[in-house]
């Protein structure tokens, strides 16, 4: 039931995204008329196609997500091992402090070091998005029901078997919830990466919404980003429902 609903929403959002990407350029002139700014339409010759921008955005967010998930999972798993218990305090502090730094300020620090381009954008995406994955991995792995662990030990499982056969399956729903939050944050943050010249849908938002004012260009950036983020959110919600169905509710 829940699954069906999610699948339906995913299809609708995907359709809307496609319609926006291909349909928006067709209605641009009408929109300019609506805002009474037809003179801008003639003068604005920035012709980056919406498809390219969206594709750049998707690629950037994908790699941002991939790296955050990989790093976040590793850090989270390390934190729950015997060795990692010692550094858990430091990791948790670091993660919560990273939330207190303005993303745009991070960009400001990284641009002079790495220059303009994709690299500072990617680093910022990882830093700003990694926290939910780490925390959810830690909570998921630490809150495995005690009776499951005991049953596993009773069956004579070794440490590794216990980890992969018992702990991981029961932590999966929680971890997916964390990944969901992370990916939504990253899709949003990728707009800021436009400041460093990393491309993506942040370009129309930044050039039109902030520098000077051009509502049509602004909407051209904002609508696809919002749809994209909603789509990602729903996709992981679907995965979460599936995981709960397969592994139980985890906690």
């Amino acid at each position, binding site marked *: 039931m829940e699954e069906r609903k999610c699948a339906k929403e995913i299809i609708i959002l995907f359709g809307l995204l496609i319609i926006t990407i291909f349909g928006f350029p067709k209605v641009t002139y009408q929109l300019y008329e609506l805002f009474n700014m037809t003179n801008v339409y003639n003068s604005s010759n920035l012709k980056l196609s919406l498809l390219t921008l969206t594709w750049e955005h998707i690629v950037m967010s994908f790699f941002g997500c991939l790296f955050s998930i990989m790093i976040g999972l590793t850090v989270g798993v390390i934190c729950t091992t015997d060795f990692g218990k*010692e*550094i858990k*305090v*430091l990791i948790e*502090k670091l993660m*919560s*402090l990273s*939330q*207190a*730094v*303005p993303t*745009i*300020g*991070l*960009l*400001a*620090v990284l*641009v*002079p070091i790495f220059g303009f381009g994709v690299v500072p954008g990617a680093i910022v995406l990882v830093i700003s998005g990694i926290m939910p994955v780490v925390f959810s991995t830690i909570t998921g792995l630490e809150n495995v029901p005690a009776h499951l662990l005991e049953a596993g030990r009773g069956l004579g499982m070794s440490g590794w078997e216990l980890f992969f056969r018992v702990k991981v399956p029961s932590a999966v729903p929680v971890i997916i919830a964390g990944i969901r939050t992370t990916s*939504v944050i990253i*899709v*949003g*943050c*990728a*707009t*800021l990466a436009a*400041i460093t010249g990393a491309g993506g849908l*942040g370009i129309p*938002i*930044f050039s*039109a*919404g*902030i520098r000077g*004012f051009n*509502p049509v260009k*602004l*909407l051209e*950036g*904002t609508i696809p*980003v*919002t749809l994209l*983020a*909603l789509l990602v*959110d729903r996709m992981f919600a679907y995965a979460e429902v599936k995981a709960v169905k397969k592994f139980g509710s985890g906690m």
Partner: protein
Amino acid sequence: MKKRDYVSVASAVIILASFLIPDFVHIKPTRISSAVSVSAGECLREYYDLFVISILLLIVLTTVKCRKSILNFLAGLYVDLLLAFLILMIVTVSKENLLINGTARLSFGVGQIMAIAGLYSIILKCEEYIQTMWMKVFVSVSGWLLIMLFLLNGLLDQYSIMQEYLAAKSQFFNYVTAHLKLTFWAVFAAVVTGIPLGYLCYKSKPFDRAAVIGLSIIEVIPQLALFAVIRIPFIVLSNSVPVLKEMGIGGYGFAPAFTALFLYSLYLMMHNSRAAFSCVDPQLIENACAMGMDSKTVFFRVQLPAAMPVILNGVRISLMSAIVGASLSSFVGAASLGIYIVNGINALAIDLQMLGVIPIFFLAVMADLGMTLIIGRLTYKRV
């Protein structure tokens, strides 16, 4: 049980290693000239040996401290002193040796960042093993208090961020108050409207369904885009209603920044209070009803107090994210500390950006700490 605190020992060794890195601090004669890297030996001169000896002592101390509360307290204090004096002596000694003149600026190099990170992680580890509350607080704040003392006495003026501060001194506090005002009003408005709306969500199903859609859109819309999109209705409004234009409400300035921050905090508050009310044990409410309370009393005496910790946690999160998020508000022309970040990005001046980033960071951390203390006190009372 003698379990050694290996993380602290490792951090102490890292600090020692950082003294060998040639890039310990950067010195710039002016903001735009290129930086010269200086190693720890060159900038600490005659105090270099002293610091190396005290770090060796630190390694010994971290090795023997294990998990004893009192030893951790002493080690923590020692690290606090070391942290504050390392930051102080770098300036003082390089000034004495004429490495820097009045307008030159020091900034953190790789080595110094490593050293500070190492020291801070030892402080955190020490705090973990201290049992007594006041000792914990004392260790965690005394280092920062010492640094603050040095700052107020103008002993650290040679650091680049302080140079920027001195140049912008006359307006700096105006921007701080503007920043705080903006976030305070946005969060205040969000709290006042968010809690009743959250309760409404909990009470009526159709309203809840509508609210979830609206909230999830606010959630996923990038903050930068939210700030920009919010300008559209304001521009249309102020063009069509002249009264608003005369009042100065338009697509630029306080109004759009406030609205964007308000919406974002509202999302957090509503989400949280909705969860808080639905987590209240239904048995409690039933009991209260059975005792003959009317619905108003039930709400104020049972539901609200039971939901309070979660709601306050929501206030904490929204306060923190509003303080951080307000840095974007300078893009729409509202006065806030973000102005330094924006100017810094435009001029590619990292020192100037830091003048925005670091105060925002500290405000956010302070807000977080303050709210955590309040929540701790309130929940403690209830139990």
